């Protein structure tokens, strides 16, 4: 049927890289939070104070959820690698 041809070790290796991507995205989130947090809300412009605050929250939420999503895909690869080994009868 040709359903599984990937090397489980390759899947595990890519899972590790994907996990690194997840960690890097968290770095982006922290960097953004640090930079914007060091500034006065809205940089002193009353009309955009709430807007910039909302934007920072939305950006952090997006980065955080995407980080988790990528980490989950890393797990997915690990499980797929394990299952491929199971199918091959390897330990």
């Amino acid at each position, binding site marked *: *049927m*040709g*359903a*599984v*041809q*990937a*090397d489980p070790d*390759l*899947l595990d290796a*890519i899972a590790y*890289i*994907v996990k690194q*991507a997840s960690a*890097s*995205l968290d*770095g*982006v989130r922290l*960097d*953004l939070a640090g*930079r*914007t947090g060091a*500034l*006065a809300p*809205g*940089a*002193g*412009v*009353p*009309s*955009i104070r709430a*807007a*910039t605050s*909302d*934007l920072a929250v*939305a*950006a952090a*939420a*997006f*980065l955080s*959820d*995407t980080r*988790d*999503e*990528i980490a*989950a*895909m890393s*797990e*997915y*690869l*690990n*499980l*797929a690698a*394990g*299952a491929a080994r*199971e*199918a091959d*009868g390897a330990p």
Partner: protein
Amino acid sequence: MIGLPDVAAPVPVGAQSSPPGNPDQLRASGRAFGAAAAALAAQAAWVRRCGTVDGWVGATASAYQARMAGIAQRMDQAGQAMQHAAAALGELADRLEEAQLLWARASGIVHPSALSGLPCPSGDDFGRATRLFATARAEGDGAGRVARDRLAGVTAALYALRAQAKAPLPRPPAGAAAINPCGAFPQQASSVFWNNGIIPLDTVCIVYAATLVEVDGEPVSVLEPVPLIGSGTTDTKGKPKRNQVDPENDEAIPAEVKSLVQARIRRAQAVGDEGIRFQADTAQNLRVRGVRVIGFGNKVFDKFGKTITDIDIETDHALIEVTTSPSGKFDQSLALLKDPRVNPAGKPVAVFGLKYSPTAAIKLTSEDVEVFTSEDDLASWLLGLQR
């Protein structure tokens, strides 16, 4: 005497303070989102590259690839949105700076410096300054409103993208435990699972079985976790089915026998003297290597209840005496080898001792007793018998 004027000078609208805001901080905020946008673009490319695995095909691989492509696309879109926010903040900074300069010009008209030598502002000057103040105020307010709307649009876009990140992940790894409970489905069906996007992960079902163990010569009933064995223990190729055997490769041993052996070994390792612990460690190491140990420290009695001997380790194909001494075990080994009450199956007998001397070994080997001073050699011999 200098008196106060009868009527206070008129103050133009908007003259009290310049349009509020710090352009430098706005630009810094814009740069923060710009940096995040650039990082997101790089990360998106990384995720996109990881989204394809050479040689991995099928429904599960397709689900992975589709999801990773979706993530990369969303990261690109989020990066573009953040770049838009950076631009909005930068433009706001520019417009605000212009408005503040305008306000400063107006302020200079109505509040000439004493050192400038300019005459006091006339009524026309006040009128011009008033218009400049109003323009500056309108420019600052307008720039703020535009930026606010643009930032709100970016925020909405990010929330929409975030909602997609919350979409259920492709099955099935997270729910693998429910896919083949207790390894119930035969391994031959695995291709059916794979071709339907399901990873056929087996689960191990553990049940507790009451077994009798000997504690200080008294039988004690204990509950031991044992795998729930399925209908068959080998696949079509004769290999053990995974998840239906334990890592010690002793699927041929009845659960109660295995539990008793495990309990005795554990007890010996915990409370035995040096010799008993060595015996127990040897038995456990053999089990880990795949030797099927079916007895540990079993005593053999005659018909009157008198102890004939004890068997340190019994596998399904051999009897092993373990010693920490450099010699001895001669009579006991012969009893194991030749007494049908002790060894009714006529299993070969071995003595294992790390320090066992070659001289003592000659005496035993002349009686067809194998002698080993290396655990590796002992395990190889036992596994050879097992095969």
